[in-house]
């Protein structure tokens, strides 16, 4: 039985991140389960020059890009769905401070799968024949680019298809609904590409809305799509995806989604946002106060709450988690 892997968020960022690293998160859709709070902590610790791997943009990438902490990004979808364009990412891209390499929502998880399987390339029947293949922000002189998405000949039919570059990020910060102290994680809602990312990344840190006793994962082993053997550390952080949603836990905070995105549209707004919503809290309690009790109550009244019911009895209290975390030695 491996030891518990619970550590604090600040410790996780301190220990597993560095300037210039290839950092992955956002293996969730733009308004859903992403470890947004991990991005806040990256800014608090002044990380910069990040090469961001996000299947889709999320408010985390929007913030990192808007704040100038990410200088390269590889993405499928780069907006915020019904909340519109991602202003922080857009501003960074349009100004040239960030090079944004475009893929699609299928080619990104295929590249993660290729990394997970340690393939040298991944066959692609999509993205070819479009400017996703022909144009590269990382190799702008190449036209048509073939270092981004190459051509490979099918040895059986002789016809050409595309070849994608696999991804093996240095670190993945993955939001999950529930994790036990060892890092056996349960996701409610679509996995999007969190399964593939958890195997592709060199290291995985889970950011869990709640910690459950190991009895929960033994009752529902088929739900544990990220087993502890691929996990380096577990961070317990309620409302970790806020202002995005976490199915079973809380809805999207529409007001803050708009507020945040509006702030990120300008340098001034971004500074103010960082002052008020990134640097402002000291710990989890401060973070929860920042969201506000009324807002937490409002977004917790989610129609998806019933999805969490089977697991509630195993959720550990903050005190129990702190006790286990105090004894953890990952």
């Amino acid at each position, binding site marked *: 039985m491996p030891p518990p892997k619970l550590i604090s968020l600040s410790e996780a960022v301190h220990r597993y991140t560095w300037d210039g690293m290839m950092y992955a998160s956002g293996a969730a859709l733009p308004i859903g389960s992403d470890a947004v709070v991990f991005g806040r902590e990256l800014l608090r610790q002044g990380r910069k020059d990040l090469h961001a791997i996000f299947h889709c943009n999320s408010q985390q990438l929007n913030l990192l890009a808007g704040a100038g902490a990410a200088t390269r990004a590889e993405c499928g979808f780069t*907006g915020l*769905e*019904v909340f519109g364009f991602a202003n922080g990412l857009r501003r960074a891209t349009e100004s040239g401070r960030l090079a944004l390499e475009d893929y699609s929502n*299928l080619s990104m998880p295929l590249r993660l799968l290729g990394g997970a399987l340690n393939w040298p390339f991944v066959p692609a029947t999509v993205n070819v*024949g479009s400017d996703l293949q022909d144009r590269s922000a990382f190799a702008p002189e190449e036209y048509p680019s073939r270092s981004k998405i190459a051509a490979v000949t099918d040895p059986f039919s002789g016809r050409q298809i595309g070849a994608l570059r696999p991804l093996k990020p240095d670190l993945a910060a993955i939001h999950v609904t529930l994790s036990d102290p060892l890092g056996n994680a349960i996701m409610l809602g*679509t996995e999007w590409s969190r399964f593939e990312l958890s195997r592709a990344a060199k290291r995985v840190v889970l950011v869990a809305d709640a910690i459950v006793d190991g009895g929960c994962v033994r009752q529902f082993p088929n739900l544990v799509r990220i087993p502890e053997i691929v996990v380096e550390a577990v961070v317990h952080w309620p409302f970790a995806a806020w202002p995005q*949603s976490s199915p079973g836990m809380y809805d999207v905070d529409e007001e803050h989604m708009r507020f945040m995105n509006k702030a990120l549209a300008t340098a001034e707004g971004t500074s103010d946002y960082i002052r008020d919503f990134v640097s402002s809290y000291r710990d989890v309690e401060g973070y929860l106060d920042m969201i506000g009790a009324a807002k937490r109550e409002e977004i917790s009244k989610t129609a998806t709450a019933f*999805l969490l019911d089977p697991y509630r009895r195993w959720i550990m209290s903050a005190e129990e988690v702190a006790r286990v975390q105090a004894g953890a030695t990952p």
Partner: protein
Amino acid sequence: MSKANPAGYTRQEMMAIATGRELRDGELAIFGVGLSMLAGFFAQAHHAPNLRAMTEGGVYGSTPVGGLPWGIECNRISTNATSFTSGLDALGCLVGSGRCDVGIIGAAQVDRYGNVNTTGIWDGDIGPTYRTPKTRLTGAGGANDIACGAKHYLIMVAHEPKRFVDRVTYISSPGYLDGGNARARFGFVGGGPSAIVTTMGILRPHPDTREFELDAWFSFSSAEEIIANTGWPLKIAPDAHVVAEPTDAELAALRTVDETGALRRAPG
């Protein structure tokens, strides 16, 4: 049709209904958020009860609850799902594979061969060296995968001259590329765009050249208005016609799906 909306429905509603009419019962169909989701679920509510609706989120078996979802993973669509899997499953196994019958995508720009740009707006051509767009848009998302893999797909777009261009600056999602048989060069399993449904009417590709032509106009519009708002010399198909107005049943079904009135608030 003026903003006063004398017909009793908006242009956006007509566009959603015309798009929904393209979907057949029993088909496996993929929608995005917003307009395309409303069009799809309208079809399911009205004439295609066995339409198998999916989004690229790997969220299956659900219908939106409590209003238009904020995204394809939104709790409003997750709350009554029967299965959650992944993007790789939805876009790869079910769409990129050629299994999906029909998809609906949007566009910032679309050109005469149905190529779609959702990546950026440049001041003129990009040129031989890639440069950052003047206005960065939302990227290809899953639309490229739908454009490559779905048996056919529909493009929904507001009919404005700036959107209907001779040649898109950047192909985010391939239509018929240079026209004719050009898609065959890349071996796409999907058949390409079967219609561009706009706020004024419907364009369809010529069977040989694959150039989009005017197939039909909504009753509140006209061939002249559509030609004036299209950035290439739009041909008129021999059997071009007026689109039937929404029936009461269609409008009722659409408005049940669009319970928060997104399409009625839209300018139109």
